[in-house]
């Protein structure tokens, strides 16, 4: 009964066939980048060495990849929910920023004796702020007829401006403020971490990230809510007619996504060594997460892997820039080309599949016609 798997598929695509475009896309992107590098006089080998050198050589460097992975992973996890529900939550950048602001607000101005309570409050407010920002986009969509892309963009701008306002105004350091960052948070307010090979690692953060992903994966694969989200994503009107509370589910999806992004923002600012709120704290992680989920074609199990590769590239990219004098943007170009190629190849796959389905339907109709003909003749 392999058919059982059909029930749990998030995208409704056979996983073996579905992964082919990804492989083809990787290949295309690599070839393109190799050509690009060749014109500069480098080989792929040079870049790989630099990447390895920058992001994998020692345990400390591996940990740095992990630290970059966590916020990206949390955002991607959240986006799995909204993409399943058919929403383009482009506002994830803003949700991440609001999360960072929430965490920073507590870290800067509230002090509790217990570290657990302190951290709980920071992370809690981060989640609430992110979730609120997500919910706002959701409400604007269902109640205000404001397309979630437009609403998200507007909320991104608003949150970025708000963060800039806070950093340059009320939250600016008392002395030596440059307008680009707040004071460093007190050590006490940061996530507890161990130092391995001169890099920090917070177990709490890792646990939260992995836990969040597992919960969302369980929701998507097994829960009623997940099934309802799938139905809404495929056809909102039909879902409503089947008695699914669509508005509530959409809000919930946006809320959860925002909350996870907020958590990502909190980890971003609270994880040592950063430990302060910086201008532009989202740093494009939200957009990158959108790419991750697009690349995974909303297949949950692929998300951690792709997010990890992206985090690896981001970490190693700096070394590429410093040792080879190639702009780190090249790494981003690689990612962009990769996603573009995968989208195109996936289009080709769907085209072939649609062709096959059409033929199958025609065959079925022919069989039915033949049967009837036979019945008429025999009687």
């Amino acid at each position, binding site marked *: 009964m392999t058919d059982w798997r059909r029930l749990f598929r998030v995208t409704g695509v056979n996983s073996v066939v579905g992964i082919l475009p990804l492989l083809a896309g990787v290949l295309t992107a690599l070839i393109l980048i190799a050509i690009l590098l060749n014109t500069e006089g480098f080989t792929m080998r040079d870049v790989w060495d630099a990447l390895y050198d920058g992001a994998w050589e020692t345990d400390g460097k591996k940990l740095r990849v992990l630290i970059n992975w966590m916020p990206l992973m949390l955002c991607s996890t959240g986006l799995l929910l909204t993409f399943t529900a058919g929403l383009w939550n482009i506002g994830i950048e803003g949700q991440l920023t609001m999360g960072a602001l929430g965490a920073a607000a507590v870290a800067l101005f509230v002090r509790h004796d217990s570290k657990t309570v302190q951290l709980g409050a920071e992370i809690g407010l981060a989640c609430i702020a992110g979730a609120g920002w997500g919910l706002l986009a959701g409400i604007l969509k269902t109640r205000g007829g404001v397309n979630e892309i437009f609403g998200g963009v507007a909320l991104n*701008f*608003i949150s970025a*401006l708000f963060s800039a306002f806070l950093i340059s105004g009320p939250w600016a350091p008392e002395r030596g403020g440059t307008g680009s960052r707040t004071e460093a948070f007190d050590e006490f307010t940061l996530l507890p971490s161990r130092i391995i090979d001169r890099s920090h690692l917070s177990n709490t953060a890792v646990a939260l990230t992995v836990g969040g992903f597992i919960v969302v994966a369980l929701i998507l694969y097994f829960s009623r809510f997940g099934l309802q989200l799938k139905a809404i994503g495929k056809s909102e009107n039909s879902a409503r007619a089947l008695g699914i509370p669509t508005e509530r589910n959409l809000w919930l999806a946006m809320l959860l996504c925002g909350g996870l992004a907020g958590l990502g923002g909190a980890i971003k600012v609270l994880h040592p060594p950063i430990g302060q709120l910086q201008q532009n704290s989202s740093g494009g992680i939200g957009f990158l997460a959108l790419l991750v989920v697009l690349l995974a074609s909303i297949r949950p199990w692929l998300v951690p892997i792709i997010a990890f590769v992206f985090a690896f590239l981001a970490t190693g990219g700096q070394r590429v820039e410093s040792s080879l004098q190639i702009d780190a*943007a090249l790494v981003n170009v690689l990612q962009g080309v990769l996603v573009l190629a995968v989208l195109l190849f996936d289009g080709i796959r769907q085209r072939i599949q649609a062709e096959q389905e059409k033929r199958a339907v025609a065959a079925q109709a022919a069989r039915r016609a033949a049967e009837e003909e036979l019945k008429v003749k025999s009687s």
Partner: protein
Amino acid sequence: MNEALIKTLAEIVGTAAPLLIAAQGELITERAGVVNLSLDGSIVLAAMAAFAVAYETESTELGILVAMLVGMLIAILIISANVTLKVNQIALGFVLTLLCADLSTYLGRDYTGLPGGNVEIPYAPIPLLKDIPVIGEIFFRQNLMVYFSFVLVAAVWFWIYRTGPGLSLRALGERPSAAYVRGTRVQFWRFVYVAIGGSLVGLAGAAYSLDVLLGWREGLTVGQGWIALAIVIFGTWKPLRILLGAYLIVGLRSFALYLQRQDTINLPVHILNMIPWLLMLLTLMFVASGVANYLVVALPKRWQTPARRFLRSDPPAALGTAFEKE
């Protein structure tokens, strides 16, 4: 009239030009039923290309031309992948947004911070018209790009509402299947309009790097594309309202700076910059929440229909969908 104010207004008209051109380009694209979400990336990449080419060849015209070509190519990529492979226009546009921005950073690294004085689009006050008090000072002491933005708005309006091909353009975005039956070559015309729209977006990029923000640095115009997209929605897909929207959003931004310079009110500039966004959300929300409708009913009978038509904010019905003959 206060000289500083006139100067500010002239500045608004000048700096709004690229935004206006990009928004009109997107308007044409969306009226044909296609979403080009890549605006933010297209503008940056076109701006970079325009500056690089103009700097190397010392020819402003060539720079502009290349920028238009870049914008057009990106738009063509979106429409052809959508037509042939049915790839989602939004996904494609979004990926291209990021990719083009990164490409511009990568390819433009050698041109960062170079002086652009000799490739600037020249200042060209129009004789006679420039001497009209106030109006002349605001509108007719600008450069060619700004005049083009005025002409463009008028041309787009005229094309959409007054000409035969414009009628087909509206038909394309509204119901391509019906347009097809009436003999419009849907895919071909969509292609043409999307390409035109894309080249206008590219032109907007050139207007930034060769005029408004003269020069090139990483992420020169980041955010402008999103603003242009927002203006199209806020302008409810109508050329004149888009004009208003563009001047409003740039105006509020410049006004913030003006206020700061005047030192009369002390509002943080970031908060002032938020106002256009909040205003847009508020307006859209007000129209859609049903409250507006409720108020319309309270109006005298003969005001109701025009009020409803004024409040209409529906996008073209076939926006973002791929056309199939069957």
